[in-house]
């Protein structure tokens, strides 16, 4: 699945990384706790979260996460978007709640990967 597919499935807006939508994603992780994300996330992942602070971008950076989806209509501020652009991380925002957003992606074939 590509980030473009993720965007389409979630009806999401692209807030950063518009030129990288063809990047492949192989697994996903949904959490508001960054320590859990650091413990369980895999390569080429999408992170879905309702947490909106600079440490979300940093966590994604450490894990080489391809794309962050902010759920429940959360929108990061300009400084966070700049951080993401500088690190090549794609930022999406969807109005779906966490459970629904995860469900839509899971149904479309994107799974969490083995623990």
């Amino acid at each position, binding site marked *: 699945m590509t980030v473009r597919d993720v965007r389409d499935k979630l009806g999401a807006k692209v807030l950063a990384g518009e030129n990288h939508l063809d990047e492949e994603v192989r697994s996903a992780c949904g959490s508001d706790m960054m320590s859990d994300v*650091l*413990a369980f996330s895999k390569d080429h992942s999408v992170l879905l979260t309702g947490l909106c602070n600079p*440490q979300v971008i940093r966590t994604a950076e*450490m894990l080489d996460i391809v794309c962050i989806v902010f759920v429940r209509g959360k929108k990061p501020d300009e400084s966070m978007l700049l951080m993401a652009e500088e690190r090549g991380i794609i930022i999406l925002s969807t109005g779906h709640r966490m459970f629904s957003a995860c469900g839509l992606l899971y149904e479309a074939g994107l799974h969490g990967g083995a623990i």
Partner: protein
Amino acid sequence: MTDMITFHYRISPDDFTRAGEASSDVKSKLKKMGVTPEAVRKVAIAMYEGEINMVIHAQGGEITVNITTDRIEMILADVGPGIPDVGLAMQAGYSTAPDAVRSLGFGAGMGLPNMKKYSDEMEIDTVIGKGTTIHMMVNI
């Protein structure tokens, strides 16, 4: 004798927004040096968790990173309150972080367990009221 490169960072206290800058810098330097992606990822995650811990629990501190041809050593030293029960602190899910920290996405009790998981060796020296020094090693 093995050549060694050393980087040194001072971690600011109570500046949660900037927490992770040192780990980010080390990650980018290791990538440029051609260190394997797996080792870079392990160092980045282990150091980032440590850096966050220093800001949350210990009013900042200092991090030294020594890089040789076969390993990366991280030394995280603070003059915080110390860890009363290291065994308990190493249990996944145990946390003493305040609710304010949890609302920022940390304090799930995974910091130290993650640091151990992603480093090949880890040693904790802690003295109550004096501070904590954590040595972590990642083999290249």
